[in-house]
């Protein structure tokens, strides 16, 4: 292993990470499904280069929040400003074009395709060969395939999944599927990466691996990360700032230490004594 990678965590943290400008700001977002308010007046921001955690009990609206950010749901009220532009309605594939990547709570891989093809699919927006060039597999189409294959192999190396390169992902164990899904999201070279419970259902060792990949992606590629996670140990360790949701409302927002001590958060997680 190279010495730089073996450096202690504290040193690495001081080396490259710089939290910068506001990358994404959500303002007074309200999302309703019929009479049910999934999100009510949510505002927070995500800064360039940070790891931002979104936590909250089940049904708090965390996944809905991510779906709003990448255009899958359209909120009834509120504004979203991404990279300085306040946007109108946006389709998910347009969000992808603007650099918002995403993984899912329930793995959403392309099950009939191999690991390699899944991650190659993540490069779709970076490939521009015409249809006819692809039919004959000459010229630009072939050059692109080879160039992007090299890029994808770097991600495969990064995630240490070389051995399963040519296996159909449907047959892989759960932990590896999660890793392939992260690989597919990284292949899009996102500016903002939304991770929906990347460690759900994993054992301790798999969680540690996944944490390492997330931290490395954040450091080496400078990817801004917003993640939903239930494991409080993980959240408190790796995130820079935490926003807490409950019943579609924002309870708290701040550094892990601030959030940990917030009485409203403790109430939401542990219950309130009514005596």
């Amino acid at each position, binding site marked *: 292993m190279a010495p730089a990678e073996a450096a202690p965590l504290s040193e690495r943290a001081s080396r490259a990470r710089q939290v910068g400008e506001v990358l994404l700001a959500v303002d007074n977002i309200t999302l309703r499904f019929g009479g049910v308010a999934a999100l009510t007046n949510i505002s927070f921001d995500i800064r360039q280069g940070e790891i931002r955690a979104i936590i909250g009990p089940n049904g708090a609206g965390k996944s809905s929040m991510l779906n709003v950010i990448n255009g899958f749901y359209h909120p009834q009220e509120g504004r979203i400003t991404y990279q300085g532009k306040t946007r109108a309605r946006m389709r998910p594939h347009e969000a992808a074009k603007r650099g918002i*990547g995403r993984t899912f709570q329930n793995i959403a891989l392309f099950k009939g395709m191999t690991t390699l*093809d899944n991650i190659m699919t993540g490069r779709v927006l970076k490939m521009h060969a015409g249809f006819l060039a*692809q039919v004959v597999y000459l010229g630009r189409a072939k050059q692109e395939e080879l160039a992007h294959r090299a890029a994808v192999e770097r991600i495969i190396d990064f995630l240490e999944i070389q051995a399963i390169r040519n296996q159909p992902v449907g047959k892989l164990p759960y932990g590896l599927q999660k890793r392939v899904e992260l690989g597919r999201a990284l292949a899009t070279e996102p500016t903002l990466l939304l991770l929906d419970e990347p460690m759900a259902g994993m054992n301790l060792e798999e969680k540690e691996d996944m944490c390492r990949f997330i931290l490395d992606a954040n450091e080496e590629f400078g990817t801004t990360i917003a993640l939903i996670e239930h494991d409080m140990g993980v959240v408190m360790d790796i995130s820079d700032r935490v926003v807490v949701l409950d019943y579609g409302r924002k309870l708290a927002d701040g550094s892990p230490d601030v959030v940990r001590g917030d009485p409203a958060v403790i109430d939401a997680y542990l219950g309130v004594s009514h005596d």
Partner: protein
Amino acid sequence: MLYRETGVFHSSYAADQAIFKLPQDRYAIAFWLVVAAVVLPLTVSNYVLTDLLTPFLIMAIAALGLNVLTGYCGQLSLGTGAFMALGGYMTYKLVTALPSASALIGSLTGVELALPDPVILGIRPFDLWFLAILIGAGLITAVVGLVFGLPSLKIKGLYLAVTTLAAQFFLVWLFIKVPWFTNYSPAGIAPAPPRTLLGLQVTGAASPPVNRYLFVLALTCLAALAVKNVTRCKVGRSWMAIRDMDIAAEMIGISPTRAKLSAFAFSSFLIGLAGALWAFVKINSVQTDAYGILVSFQVLFMVIIGGLGTVLGSFLGAAFVILTPILLNIGLTALNPGLQALGLPAFEVAMIKHIEFMIFGALIIFFLIVEPHGLARLWQIAKQKLRTWPFPY
């Protein structure tokens, strides 16, 4: 250890992304191509060429086309027969309206010009005119297929299949109802005019079976290569992504509209080509009887039995559906002298047909139970067994 990857090392991504990665595979495909292009035409009878091999190859193109749509992109279609019909009728209209390249220029400019007929590298380019006609008809079919693919943007699965039935009934009705499509032929059947390609007559009643067979063989190889190329590139991966998980596909930047419509267009192009060949090379006439809903089902069965989402499966499925009934018929008829020698009653013609249906049906059920993923998967499993033989683990 008869067939293995061990010892084959690729040192470049280009080698690793080749269609046939193993030397064994390359030798095998070269062998089969020589057999198909040289050995068979020299050895087998005209009956085998005309009634077995040519229809098998044409239907393989149709199966490739439907496989693009259903196997790779996951959009179910029952309109195959109609798009084959469209390919046939459009080829007929183009071939009769524009018998040559100079006719096209004449109709565009209004001036009849006697074009020079140059010879380049031993080929007269204008003798490829029929190929241009086929491509033109395929493109028209692609556009119509794209239009009938529009419901796929909102509707999925069986419901989409029902909307493609609309194409099947509407187009066939149109070709019966509007005599313009058959150039006002009284019986509604348009005879295929004779056309040559590279100096060889490939269509029309008088064209030799060998010419037709080689023509279809060449087009089938090109179609298979095109499908293989497209499916290992960006477009193919977009199709499969839409098939496997459309929401995730959209969230990494694939536009479902473009992916689905391009699948409909490319699929219809190939199916239209198959329909044109069926009319011009197989049955020598363009008529709606050849393109009924049964053809749609037949091609769908080929794709399902052969293997969804594989090029090999399209060929295996077409061979199974086209050849099995004919071979069963020949086999059962051949039993008759033996039965008579034993003093048993011989099979009547109708009886042979019934037994043929029963065995064919039983075989379909057998193969789908043994391997629901199709014959192509059986071949994969066989390869795996060969790989580990004689010490399976």
